[in-house]
């Protein structure tokens, strides 16, 4: 299991534009880091680099287990990393039940995981609806369900709470706390503060 994530002097560029230089960051089990910065500072790109979608110009993303042994990044991303971006990866024409079943199964659900996710995120009344009929907040809850149904150590979250109302922000905050208590790691790009104690890292400052 991933015990720590370390970014060593990471430089990211999109096209010709350098987003930030020499950003270093270590995240250990049980910790949450909130990435802040202006629009376009590179918060989302940083998350995508950790997920392996963007190759950094320089620097390295490394995953280590509890004994400080390096985990192969491909293996870590295939089994232990969740990424939830602006786009939730949900198909509008399919029902919430079908999409949840696919996402949870694909990402490695545990026994009873889907039921637990449905329970904690209040999805039961939505399951038979087509995804396109859901509101933005309902869609986000459905997308968050995969984090619960298929437990993985590192959560990469991009504005995870923005479409949620106060009640669900609090509930998701509780889920995050539980994840951290269980030795999980959270790296989230945010504008509003997270509802949990989190170290704040300003991405824009590393320009």
């Amino acid at each position: 299991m991933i015990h720590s994530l370390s970014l060593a002097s990471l430089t990211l560029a999109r096209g010709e534009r350098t987003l930030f230089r020499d950003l270093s960051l270590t995240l250990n089990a049980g910790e949450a880091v909130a990435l802040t910065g202006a629009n376009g500072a590179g918060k989302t790109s940083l998350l995508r680099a950790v997920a392996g979608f963007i190759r950094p110009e320089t620097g390295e993303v490394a995953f280590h287990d509890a004994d400080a042994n390096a985990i192969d990044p491909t293996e870590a991303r295939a089994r232990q990393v969740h990424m939830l971006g602006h786009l939730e990866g949900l198909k509008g024409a399919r029902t919430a039940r079908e999409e949840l079943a696919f996402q949870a199964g694909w990402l490695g659900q545990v026994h009873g995981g889907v039921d637990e996710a449905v329970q904690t995120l209040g999805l039961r009344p939505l399951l038979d609806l087509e995804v396109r009929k859901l509101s933005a907040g309902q869609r986000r809850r459905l997308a968050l369900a995969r984090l619960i149904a298929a437990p993985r150590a590192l959560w990469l979250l991009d504005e995870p709470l923005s479409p949620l109302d106060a009640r669900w922000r609090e509930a998701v905050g509780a889920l995050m706390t539980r994840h951290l208590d269980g030795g999980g790691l959270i790296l989230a790009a945010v504008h509003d503060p997270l509802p949990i104690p989190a170290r704040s890292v300003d991405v824009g400052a590393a320009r």
Partner: protein
Amino acid sequence: MSAVVILFRRELALAWGGGGGPLLACGFFVCLTTIVPLAAGGDLATLRPVAAGVAWLALALASLLSLERLFERDLEDGALDLLALGPLSLEAVVAIKAAAQWLATGLPLALAAPIAALALGQSIDLAPLTMLAALIGGLGFAFTGALGAALALGAKRGGLLIAIVVLPLFIPPVVFGAGALTRAAEGLSPWPAMALLTAYVLFAAVIAPPAGAAAIRGAQG
């Protein structure tokens, strides 16, 4: 349930759900082959020599239809990120998607092919061979098409681009497939051409997954 089965079932559900893509491809295929006698005249003496060629051309065009949704939709709604973080490599994802495309579109088209060829005046004795050749060729269309769809990712008017990229790559299977049927119609052995067709399909099945996966990584970055 293994990840392969989970993804394969999702791909089939997506292909059949919402609009019935395979039926659309079959309808298109039937329309094309019906237009030919109307355009060239219904005389069997004219049609019979070109029946195999026309049927294969129609098959190739009909195979293009649903390629656009193979990766483009997943890129648009973010599902491609989800697929990239799954237990299987992107290479395997491409191969599974191509295989599902074949089962969803290639198989119905292969069932329709003998009927279309029959309507163009091909002898009924050739129906089993036509279906077999369309089945094998369809697999080649699916893998080559998946590669083209991956290469066209993120481009505006991707559907048109896919057609331009993929159609030239469809030439070998069309030549071998139609050649096999023409030879059989002339009383010669179709198997040399069928062997070439199979060789092309194997080639496409080996090349498409790594090349397609590389194209997807490029589109994601």
